[in-house]
């Protein structure tokens, strides 16, 4: 392989690929992360793309990025700041320079730094010519012309030739991190198998990029990131949205029910519907509804008729589903509502992340209308919590809201593949022919009613959104009955606490500071707290996945710490909720509303400040 002058061992490296949204940066990033995962590194990735499919070329608004973080140790986040930035044009440099570590490496496509592109990006002078980048290791590569030169005899037209230039940068980065090309070569062969010319061209350019980096000695040194110590097993990469879809399918299989998904496309939740739509082979029924309301309503209909029914959406869609969600509470039908949160309110920041639908999920319905709320915290654990949402919905005969967010939904990480036999069986309380049946008669432990599926002889019954008499289930406007039924609906959700695990703390059971988080901030909070724990700081982390009801030991855990700080990507909704649940405890807050995840740096700064305060 290459002759490196100097090798620097690194625990972890962050690379950010960026370019125009048509430059193929998502594919380039995915290729590098797959190769690193195969090499044995732990990896976390995050794509960052504009909301517009074809945003104006060359502008900062049209920049598409893909960040990946790989390491010799466990990786929990896609990384705050990049060691290496690949910028395919001036706009990409402009948009991402602030995310490059001091003295980091920047690879630019020099050909794209034309007067026109500089102007589009809003540069007054060429940053490659002045001293603005003097503190970085700047690698200027004429990617466009080198690709063109390399493929001049390829038989491809100019447009197709230019499409190969992302492979040139991928090749360069492979050389810099001493990665083999074979995985990407295989990928190219499979992807373009119908177009041999395209296969040959992409492979040639990949190799050319690799050799170019070697020739110019793109780095005066070479990073080496040894494989991580990872639990044995069979692994695959998975995004949060795919894991969510698979978790729902797994719940259907373990409950022996058909899966029905009624949904309307919405960023960033659409991939769940797409993934389910692709799984006709597993009998999944997907229904692309005419709107968000029809999405949940078809699911409620399917649930009434005996399917495991789900609907998937993002914040504004959840608002539209509100009334129907109330119907599911009233009729006590199992249903999973997945909300992949994005920046709000209104259309807000569709492609950016936020955790600001928490109170909407817990409270946002007409009437006293409680339903369990569960949150996933990493791309791969979306599988587990989607499964759990299904388990709770079916075992307790209730709608459940599963919260994920744009960050974990689009992020990817290696995932140790479970065996289906490791997952618990889910037993829904289905009434059988010959059973004594009253629509609202309840079993004692969970106060759930039985599910009498249409088609079952002798169990004909009527349900609906009007208040019912407990037991017989006929319509009733009797004041005392409404109190009884309201109390039961509340109690039913409280009883879910008996069917979920207790909260576990990362770190000491008693300490000066307890960091509290929930959902998709897990990676950043874990990394920040671990780093401070390594510095012997008295700090622990309690991260919540079961939001409503809370785990039963929550109060006990909170009582062991001097200070508690609740960190979330909203204006303090979980803190508010905890204050109303535990009125004697003081909760500090750390919040951010920028459409971006926390950075480990900002969290450590805030925690240090809290640790030092008397």
């Amino acid at each position, binding site marked *: 392989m290459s002759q490196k002058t100097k090798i620097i061992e690194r625990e972890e490296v962050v690379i950010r690929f960026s370019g125009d949204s048509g430059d193929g940066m998502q594919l380039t990033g995915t290729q590098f992360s797959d190769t690193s995962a195969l090499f044995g590194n732990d990896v976390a990735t995050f794509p960052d793309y504009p909301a517009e499919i074809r945003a104006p070329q060359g502008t900062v608004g049209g920049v598409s990025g893909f960040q990946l973080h790989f390491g010799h140790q466990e990786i929990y986040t896609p990384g705050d700041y990049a060691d290496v930035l690949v910028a395919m044009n001036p706009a990409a440099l402009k948009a991402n320079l602030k995310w490059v570590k001091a003295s980091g490496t920047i690879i630019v496509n020099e050909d794209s730094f034309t007067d026109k592109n500089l102007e589009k990006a809003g540069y007054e002078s060429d940053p490659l010519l002045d001293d603005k980048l003097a503190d970085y290791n700047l690698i200027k590569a004429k990617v466009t012309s080198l690709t063109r030169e390399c493929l001049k005899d390829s038989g491809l037209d100019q447009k197709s030739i230019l499409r190969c230039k992302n492979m040139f940068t991928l090749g360069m980065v492979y050389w810099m991190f001493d990665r083999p090309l074979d995985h990407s070569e295989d990928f190219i062969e499979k992807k373009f198998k119908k177009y041999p010319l395209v296969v040959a061209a992409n492979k040639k350019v990949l190799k050319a990029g690799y050799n170019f980096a070697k020739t110019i000695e793109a780095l005066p040194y070479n990073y080496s990131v040894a494989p991580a110590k990872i639990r044995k097993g*069979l692994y*695959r990469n998975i995004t949060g949205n795919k894991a969510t879809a698979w978790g729902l399918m797994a719940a259907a299989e373990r409950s022996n029910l058909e899966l029905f998904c009624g949904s309307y496309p919405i960023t960033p939740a659409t991939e769940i519907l797409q993934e389910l739509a692709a799984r006709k082979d597993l009998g999944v029924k997907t229904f692309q509804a005419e709107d968000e309301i029809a999405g949940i309503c078809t699911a409620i209909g399917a649930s009434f008729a005996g399917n495991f029914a789900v609907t998937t959406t993002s914040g504004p869609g959840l608002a539209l589903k509100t009334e129907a969600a109330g119907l599911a509470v009233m009729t006590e039908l199992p249903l999973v509502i997945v909300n992949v949160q994005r920046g709000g309110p209104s259309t807000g920041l569709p492609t950016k992340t936020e955790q600001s639908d928490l109170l909407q999920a817990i409270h946002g319905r007409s009437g006293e209308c409680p339903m369990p709320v569960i949150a996933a915290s990493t791309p791969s654990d979306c599988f587990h919590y989607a499964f759990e949402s299904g388990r709770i919905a079916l075992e307790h005969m209730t709608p459940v809201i599963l919260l994920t967010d744009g960050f974990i939904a689009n992020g990817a990480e290696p995932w140790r593949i479970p065996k289906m036999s490791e997952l618990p069986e889910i037993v829904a309380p289905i009434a059988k022919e010959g059973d004594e049946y009253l629509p609202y008669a309840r079993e004692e432990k969970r106060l759930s009613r039985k599910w009498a599926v249409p088609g079952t002889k002798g169990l004909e019954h009527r349900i*609906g959104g*009007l208040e019912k008499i407990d037991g017989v289930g006929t319509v009733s406007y009797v004041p005392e009955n409404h109190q009884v039924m309201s109390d039961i609906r509340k109690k039913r959700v409280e009883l879910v606490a008996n069917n979920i695990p207790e909260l576990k703390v990362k770190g000491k059971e008693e300490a000066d500071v307890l960091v509290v988080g929930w959902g998709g901030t897990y990676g950043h909070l874990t990394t920040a707290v671990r780093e401070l724990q390594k510095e012997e700081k008295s700090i622990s982390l309690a991260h919540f996945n079961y939001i409503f009801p809370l785990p039963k030991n929550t109060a006990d855990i909170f009582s062991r710490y001097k200070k508690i700080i609740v960190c979330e990507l909203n204006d303090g909704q979980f803190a508010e909720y905890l204050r109303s649940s535990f009125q004697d405890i003081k909760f500090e807050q750390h919040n951010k509303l920028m459409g971006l995840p926390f950075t480990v740096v900002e969290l450590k700064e805030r925690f240090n400040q809290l640790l030092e305060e008397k």
Partner: protein
Amino acid sequence: MADTVLNEPNIKKLSPKDFRSDQENRWCPGCGDHGILNSVQKAMAEMDFKKEDYAIISGIGCSSRFPYYVDTYGFHTIHGRAAAIASGVKCANPDLEVIQVSGDGDALAIGGNHFIHAVRRNIDMTILLFNNEIYGLTKGQYSPTSNQGMVTKTSPFGTIEEPFKPAQLALGARSKFYARSLDTNIKLTTAVVKAASDHKGTSIVEVLQNCVIYNDGAHSLITDKATKEEYQVIIEHGKPMIFGKEKNKGLIMGGNGKLVVVTIGEHGITEEDVLVHDAHTEDPHMHWLLSSMMAPEYPVALGVIRDVDSTSYDEKMVQQIADVKAISSIKNMDDLLNSGDTWVVD
């Protein structure tokens, strides 16, 4: 899931009484809904479905109380959404016989979107649309089918809105089955509900229904004994469109592309000149003309106006799943979890 075998003749013949529930009926005395309920229960008993294989789904409004009064599986849902919920029921279990009940407000105002998309998808279910041209349960506001100028509580100076004609909306959404009946005509309503059920796909049955309290007499020209024979034409596939007390009026196609009412025996018109109804033709042109006829200019067309053969959404859904299952190597979740790019960590 119950392993019921459907479409088998009932061993014990059911009667309309078997479909009466124990619920107290809360419709006003004299409401047209009573007649429709009787007709539907009669149709249900006469069809070859088991009692447990029916699912009746309604929205909100007077008509939407319907499921409470029928002893089978029923779901009284939320305003406007019955078509969507019924769609989910049918997809979840295509063996069920799904009947959706809505009023003109429920189906065409708040539920208009779900109505047209249900029709477009052609899911095999029957939509009973009770059209009384008024909001009854909220006590007398104009509906999307109220005639322009109608004075109601929310239009004290007369409505200034153009009303929907449900048939036109259905045809615009590419409906394959459309029938119309009257609340008072039990025989006809029973017959068209059965025909709707036989049709594979979304069947619309518009029942002109009288609200005795807030819009009494809305359809009186076609229901009153004195005038009904002149103002209604009951059409049947393959039969000439003849009506009138003396059975001497008929419909012919005029030179201007409009239907013309003629009298047989006058101006040399014979029975052979009268149009013969073709409900099965795919071209909706004549169905549009027939369903758009309004009294007093024309008789109002009743019966099965359109009944075109088609494959339903649920049939295609079931077929597609079977086809993909047959060719895929992924048979269960373990197969899926282990598919594609994976690697072993030792």
